[in-house]
């Protein structure tokens, strides 16, 4: 065994020495793939759910976005983000009805709207990817819907089914999926939320649960009517929701509202298949440009082009500047451009970065530790790539994410929480003391924008420049915001009843607690930094770090004190951020998303008015008021909006950061020839240190050999002598 291993190693080195053409020694991919238009990427955690009713995490959307097609999508190039049809004919405007059922217009006050009706028409002729669930025999019966035990024995993966089929997309598939959101076996994360809007969805869920209790192995959802989602004809369906909820259209651009055909549901419901890990969670079925052909979460996942894809053209127009940037070179060409995408399992950041530099991954983010290697900030503050990156032809694309990361106070806490003026002053003091700009510069390399209010840039209601700064923390000096001096914080702290960080009455030092789940080196550095910030106002911060579950528990019970939290936009609307501070939405007790448990009557009233309004000056005015209330009460301190930096190799084209769309893979293209050429240039093996090392080792044995010789000669006399001793 040992010998054969050596033999293989030897073969490997020999083959590499003889200069095998094209492929470098450290190329992790099989030979022969060099000329194909394959995109190489990585994943670090296996996606848990690829079922569109269940998947919500960003690492799952990477896949589901390419496979499933909801009725709408975001325009790839245009900003601000706008919805365009994907499988639908157009983006419909809803019809509104009041509580008596008479139609009213959108101009009527939002409170009078009792029902909104969306009628969606889909394009004919769209077909599903080839899949065994559609396969029929000559008589038109489904081949694999009643698999016998014998048939199951021969099946290990989905590709073991000899025949596949397809069929046209129908409106009923969309309705079927909406019904699946309420399915008792499927844990859809948005079921609870959607049942408040979609008419009768809650009752529908109860109905299904009862049907399941009666022992039905498979529930054909077509047999259960749902008032909120109905098929009108083969290509049309209708969704009814309570009240007015203009943001609902954005939901219809997420895979939650993608079509799932009955045949697929029926197919995967067979007990024997789940035993073999063949479920919709692992083998999704869609109409999109790609289909998942290999799903080995232990090694790699492969997306390949869907041969039945209905075809779509690259957008003809974009933002001003897109043409100059070459983003419109492929305008009108059929999508997708890339044949295949290979995602490899990578657990550690360092190998990903190094493989990117070696050309084995086509794009990469930049960790804070590799930042200085990749990016140089010019004298004027502009970001630019370093010479090393430029010489490799790498491009840098930046975008400010529609996300807010913030440090929050638990407003239920007796020390830092509540509406009492002294607690408020304490929070304001802390808000000044935590130098968010320094944190961004140390931990994010300046990639981020210090928070001025809850809304991130790019969302309606956000204000730039002097008008948008938080006057309670910043001054506007020389055309930019400047943090108030630390003396102001100390002053506020004294006014709050803690002069020099000590309780005025007892003289006890003030100790605050930071609850977190962080472990690992990065977190340690953050904690050290954070403690430094609190020490500036002589307050000691104790880090209470715990595991994820315990932390969740604390948040749910409202026993945390200071914590960090973040929110990624579901859709580009201020409501999606401001609802994070809405009183009835509190985390503690109500399980909402208001992690700070902030509750302010004024804010809540304004929110109720703002949420259903169309964007306009009136809405802006209300939002400004709400932001001001939050700034005064400081439930959140020191947040930031991260800026995303992406690096792309020269052969990877048509990339424009789009923070809302998740089906962008179809627009991208690669140039495999350039890639192969560059990889060869960058990955020339260096052998000489090995030879030198070997020589040194040989030299090292020389004295040993000499000593052996001497020993051999003297062995007879000496050994006797020694043994006698």
């Amino acid at each position, binding site marked *: 065994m040992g010998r054969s291993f050596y033999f293989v190693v030897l073969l490997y080195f020999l083959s590499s020495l003889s200069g095998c053409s094209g492929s470098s020694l450290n190329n992790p991919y099989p030979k022969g793939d060099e000329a194909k238009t394959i995109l190489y990427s990585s994943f670090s955690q296996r996606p848990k759910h690829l079922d569109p009713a269940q998947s919500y995490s960003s690492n799952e959307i990477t896949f589901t976005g390419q496979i499933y097609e909801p009725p709408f999508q975001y325009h790839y190039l245009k900003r601000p983000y706008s919805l365009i049809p994907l499988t639908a004919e157009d983006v419909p405007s809803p019809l509104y009805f009041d509580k008596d059922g008479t139609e009213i217009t959108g101009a009527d006050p939002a409170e009078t709207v009792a029902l909104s009706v969306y009628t969606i028409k889909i394009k004919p002729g769209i077909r599903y990817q080839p899949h065994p669930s559609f396969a029929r025999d000559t008589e038109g019966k489904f081949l694999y819907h009643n698999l016998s035990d014998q048939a199951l024995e021969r099946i290990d993966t989905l590709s073991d089914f000899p025949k596949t089929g397809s069929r046209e997309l129908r409106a009923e598939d969309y309705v079927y999926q909406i019904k699946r959101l309420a399915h008792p076996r499927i844990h859809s994360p948005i079921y609870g939320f959607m049942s408040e809007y979609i008419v009768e969805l809650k009752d529908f869920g109860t109905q299904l649960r009862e049907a399941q209790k009666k022992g039905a192995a498979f529930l054909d959802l077509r047999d259960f009517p749902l008032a909120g989602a109905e098929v009108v004809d083969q290509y049309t369906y209708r969704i009814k929701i309570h009240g007015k909820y203009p943001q609902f259209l954005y939901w219809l651009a997420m895979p939650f509202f993608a079509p799932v055909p009955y045949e697929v549901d029926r197919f995967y419901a067979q007990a024997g298949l789940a035993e073999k890990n063949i479920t919709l969670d692992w083998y999704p079925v869609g109409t999109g440009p790609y289909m998942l052909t290999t799903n080995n979460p232990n090694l790699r996942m492969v997306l390949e082009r869907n041969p039945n894809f209905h075809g779509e053209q690259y957008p003809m127009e974009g933002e001003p500047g897109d043409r100059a940037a070459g983003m419109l070179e492929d305008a009108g060409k059929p999508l997708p451009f890339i044949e295949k995408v290979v995602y490899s399992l990578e657990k550690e950041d360092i190998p990903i*970065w190094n493989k990117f530099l070696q050309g084995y991954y086509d794009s990469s983010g930049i960790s804070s530790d*590799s930042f200085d290697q990749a990016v140089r900030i010019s*004298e004027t503050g502009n970001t630019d790539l370093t010479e090393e990156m430029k010489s490799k032809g790498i491009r840098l694309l930046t975008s400010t994410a529609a996300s807010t990361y913030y440090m929050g106070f638990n407003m239920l806490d007796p020390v830092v929480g509540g509406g009492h003026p002294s607690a408020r002053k304490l929070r304001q003091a802390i808000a000044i003391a935590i130098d968010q700009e320094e944190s961004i510069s140390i931990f994010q390399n300046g990639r981020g924008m210090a928070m001025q209010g809850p809304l991130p840039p790019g969302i309606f209601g956000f204000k730039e420049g002097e008008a948008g700064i938080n006057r309670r923390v910043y001054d506007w000096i020389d055309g930019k915001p400047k943090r108030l001096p630390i003396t102001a914080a100390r002053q506020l702290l004294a006014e709050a009843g803690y002069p020099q960080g000590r309780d005025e009455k007892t*003289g006890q030092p003030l100790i605050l607690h930071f609850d977190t789940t*962080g472990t690992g080196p990065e977190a340690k550095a953050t904690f050290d930094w954070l403690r430094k910030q609190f020490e500036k106002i002589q307050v000691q911060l104790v*880090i209470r770090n715990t595991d994820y579950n315990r932390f969740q528990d604390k948040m749910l019970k409202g026993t945390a004190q200071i914590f960090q939290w973040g929110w990624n936009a579901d859709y580009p609307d201020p409501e999606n951020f401001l609802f994070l501070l809405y009183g009835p939405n509190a985390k503690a007790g109500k399980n909402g998303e208001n992690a700070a448990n902030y509750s302010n009557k004024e804010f809540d009233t304004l929110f109720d008015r703002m949420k259903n309004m169309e964007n306009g000056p009136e809405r802006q005015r209300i939002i400004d008021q709400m932001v001001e209330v939050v700034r005064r009460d400081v439930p959140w301190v020191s947040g930031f909006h991260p800026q995303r930096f992406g690096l792309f190799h020269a052969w990877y084209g048509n990339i424009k950061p789009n923070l809302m769309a998740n089906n962008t893979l179809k627009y991208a293209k690669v140039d495999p020839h350039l890639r192969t050429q560059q990889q060869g240039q960058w990955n020339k093996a260096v052998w000489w240190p090995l030879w030198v090392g070997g020589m040194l080792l040989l030299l090292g044995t020389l004295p040993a050999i000499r000593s052996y010789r001497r020993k051999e000669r003297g062995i007879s006399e000496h050994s006797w002598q020694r043994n006698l001793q």
Partner: protein
Amino acid sequence: MPDFFTNLSSFKPVFLWTDILLLLLLASMGAIGVYVSGQEHLLAPLRQVRRRALAMAALTVLLSYIGIGLLDSLHFRQKLPQIEAGQEIQYSPEVLSLLDLVVGRLRKNVERTYSAPLATHSFAKEMIEFPGGVKKRVFPPLSYGGAHLTDGLTQSADIKQTLFMGGLTGLFLAFTLFLTFSFLLSRHHRSPWKKTLHALRNNQYETAWGAILITLSLIIIMVSIVIPLSAKYHLSGTDKVGQDVLYLALKGIRTGLVIGGLTTLVMLPFALFLGIAAGYFRGWVDDLIQYLYTTLSSVPGVLLIAAAVLILQVYMDKHADSFSSITERADIRLLFLCLILGMTSWIGLCRLLRGETLKLRESEYVQAAIALGVGRTRILIRHILPNVMHIVLISVVLDFSGLVLAEAVLSYVGVGVDPAMISWGNMINSARMEMAREPIVWWSLSAAFIFMFGLVLTANIFSDAVRDAFDPRLRSR
């Protein structure tokens, strides 16, 4: 420093759990020492260790590590100034150790972010506004490292000068030590000084004094160079949030010692009691103990440790008031880690002890004692225990270095010491990311490496000597 001596009442001693246990460990080591000094069969091999130059040199280094560790184990809180007269005296929530006082400036001189060893400027460029409103991205000067430099004094000249002066002082001190010691030694042995020197060089004393002296001299010279340099510069650079790496590495010593030492203290009673009981009583006692350790050793250690650490966290969350300061939280986690590492590592020793006891039980003198009707406890204490002590000694010294190394790996898996605790494992863990930087940040990793290597290497060399001396199979050589 001065006010430490003038105003002792401004400090309130704090005894952390690990402090108490560490002192207990020292005390028990002293007790073992007293015990051993009465046991000729244990004393003879130890004399052999004393004669070995390499082992004694290693022991000297080891003792200086332990010295620093002890200094870092005496904790206290400083008094806060009174705001109003008549208030109760309040103490700072920050727990400091004697070491923190000794190295004072190292702890307090915190920069903004990374800086290279001996650097005067930061490692990363920053936007700085110059007088006149011109903004440029430059390497900003450090606030402490090389801050004393003036235009007339360049960095390299200053470093050379400091090195030279430090070296000179060190040499002088080392020479003084050498003279004093050899003088004392010659007085003690009543032999001429020249002969003493000769004997020292040829290792002719019962203790390898020569090796100890050389090691001590080297340490003195090194310290004399390091002290003035680290006062003016960051000798090993600073880390991501600007803390002095030398300070971190020094603080890591205590963590390493606690993990290596306390774990042994924890497991020793278990292993001794259960191992001997299993071997001596046999029958169902043996079956039960064997069952216990086979079961425990079949559960993957990482899982056991992860579970224990999580249980502790739950406990701390429920009793948040008793763990009000960072130091206490980190300390209790460290203690727990020692406990659980002890639980997983007593098995090996227990098994060895069981085997040895089985053998000893059949030996003639034990059989004779049983026949004479000597009580069980007496047999166990008088006959069995002394004859397994060498196994205990060997495995204690052998385990020590392995445990120090294990700490780093556990930190990587995420179940090591508290992230707020300074330890070499945490330093190495951060270094993984620093190695990927360009230009590379090598100083944290190197500092952790050198300090850890020094401890583990000397511990290994010393334990090698102990094992060689005690292992009867190897004694002949």
